[in-house]
């Protein structure tokens, strides 16, 4: 006997069979083209078995349950269909991660927040892949794109798996929430611009999600209770997807991109000659003055490949290299100083084109030693740095005291982008090849 609001037994049975068949077809991720066809076939089989059991005297409800039991476990059948409709690789990875789970009871509200956070995380990962892929150097860009797209895929899978009660996706989302919190705290503690304050939205979202999760923990455990184990291999793959995007930056800070020039790819030579002659200081010419000629020549055997990424191959967003010198008087107590009479803009020796200007440029100026920054430095266009080209800059100096001064020694430094620093010290009549000074040593000073 059923009340007016209660469904008829046949409808109840149909609903049960519908849900069962749907669990199989959904769990197998049957392609859309075959979904309807397979659903109809499975439904037809079970309906015929129900009729057979009912004919033997069972009630519709009992016959339905028996027919479903005869047909087999939904999860196992979904796995078998998954292996049929998809490749072995798909079945052993995505098929496992998105396997259908028998969910008992309604979906906890925290799942909505967890899925929202995973959607945002997926967007971040996609954004990371685009930004780094477009602006980083080739090997860094490719590595970043792989790492970020890998993480994007894992986030997208977790988003879907959260909706189907997969336990792994719950833990994955919790790990992402913790990552959001830690990253936000780190950004506040290490602002891009000193003194600036960044509102850690990720931290707030992560904390909010963890709060919601802790409040509904028992329900979430029940929601994912039907989920099977995914195995050590897939667990390792998921953990990797969390770690890899965080590793790209630190790894390439230590291991240089092989497509970029190293200090050994450029010969930087400083030459100093000393003589006497006319000195024109602002229109006032004095004769028989000490003169010091300093010449820098940077001969590039191998230049960087896309040093600012694919997107900036035509218009680099930052400057290029910087070079400068520091006069080192033989006696600090003599009070002698040398002033710059004139300087020649940096030129490409192959065609004489001016390739820089008097000054310095970021990020390379940050590598120049303190005594050189603010001196008579030159900046060099990044586009001028090409295989087989030599860049030349020169300075003419004279002592501020017209009386004979002690000839100084000069320390010259050349900095390439934010990559490396080459330093040499020369005296009168000397020419020296600059040697690399480790950046950490430079920064330590």
């Amino acid at each position, binding site marked *: 006997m059923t009340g007016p609001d209660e469904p008829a037994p046949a409808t109840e049975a149909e609903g049960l069979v519908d849900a069962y068949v749907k669990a199989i077809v959904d769990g197998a991720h049957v392609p859309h083209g075959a979904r309807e066809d397979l659903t109809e076939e499975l439904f*037809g089989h079970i309906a015929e078995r129900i009729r057979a059991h009912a004919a033997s005297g069972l009630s519709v409800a009992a016959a339905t349950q028996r027919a479903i039991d005869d047909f087999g476990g939904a999860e196992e059948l979904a796995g078998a*269909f998954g292996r049929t409709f998809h490749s072995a690789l798909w079945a052993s990875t995505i098929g496992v991660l998105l396997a259908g789970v028998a969910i008992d009871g309604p979906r906890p509200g925290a799942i909505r927040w967890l899925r929202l956070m995973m959607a945002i995380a997926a967007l971040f990962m996609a954004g990371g892949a685009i930004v780094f892929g477009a602006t980083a150097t080739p090997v860094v860009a490719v590595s970043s794109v792989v790492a970020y797209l890998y993480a994007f895929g894992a986030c997208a899978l977790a988003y879907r798996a959260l909706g189907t009660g997969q336990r792994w996706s719950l833990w994955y989302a919790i790990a992402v929430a913790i990552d959001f919190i830690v990253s936000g705290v780190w950004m506040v503690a290490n602002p891009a611009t000193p003194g600036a304050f960044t509102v850690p939205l990720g931290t707030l979202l992560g904390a909010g999600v963890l709060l919601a999760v802790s409040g509904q923990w028992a329900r979430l455990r029940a929601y994912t209770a039907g989920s099977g184990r995914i195995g050590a291999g897939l667990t390792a793959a998921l953990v990797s997807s969390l770690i890899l995007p965080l590793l790209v930056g630190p790894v390439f800070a230590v291991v240089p991109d092989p497509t970029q020039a190293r200090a050994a790819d450029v010969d930087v030579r400083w030459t100093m000659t000393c003589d006497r002659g006319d000195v024109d200081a602002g229109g006032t010419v004095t004769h028989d003055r000490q003169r010091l000629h300093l010449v820098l020549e940077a001969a590039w055997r191998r230049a960087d490949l896309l040093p600012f990424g694919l997107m900036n191959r035509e218009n680099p967003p930052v400057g290029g290299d910087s070079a400068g010198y520091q006069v080192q008087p033989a006696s600090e107590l003599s009070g002698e100083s040398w002033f710059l009479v004139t300087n020649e803009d940096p030129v490409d020796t192959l065609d004489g084109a001016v390739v820089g200007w008097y000054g310095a440029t970021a990020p390379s100026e940050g590598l120049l030693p303190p005594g050189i920054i603010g001196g008579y430095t030159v900046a060099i266009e990044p586009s001028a740095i090409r295989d087989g080209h030599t860049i030349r800059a020169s300075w003419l100096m004279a002592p501020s005291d017209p009386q004979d001064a002690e000839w100084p020694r000069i320390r010259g430094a050349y900095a390439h982008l934010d990559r490396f620093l080459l330093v040499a010290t020369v005296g009168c009549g000397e020419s020296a090849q600059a040697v690399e000074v480790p950046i950490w040593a430079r920064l330590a000073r």
Partner: protein
Amino acid sequence: MTAPRLDRGDYGLLLLGLLGEREMYGYEVVSELRARSTAVIDLPEGTVYPALRRLERDGLVRARWVDVEGAPRRRYYALTTAGERALTEGRESWHRFTRAADQVLGG
């Protein structure tokens, strides 16, 4: 196209054997399999469908829908030429194996 391997838990060869006699639909295949094996082969009924779909995917069987009065329409499966060839090869291979096994076991 390799023949189904019973030793790998794939009972596709048995399905080919049944379908080699006549066109059948899934429910009928399950019933025949159970009856002829005197219930020795009594797998969950649903497992026959992934196996049938694999045979179809591999071009060994083809399927068609048949309307049935007063009941859901049925999807009938029949062997293709490749399926007939696979059945012949699989049957020979199986008989060779059982003869050899009999000689070893003294059957």
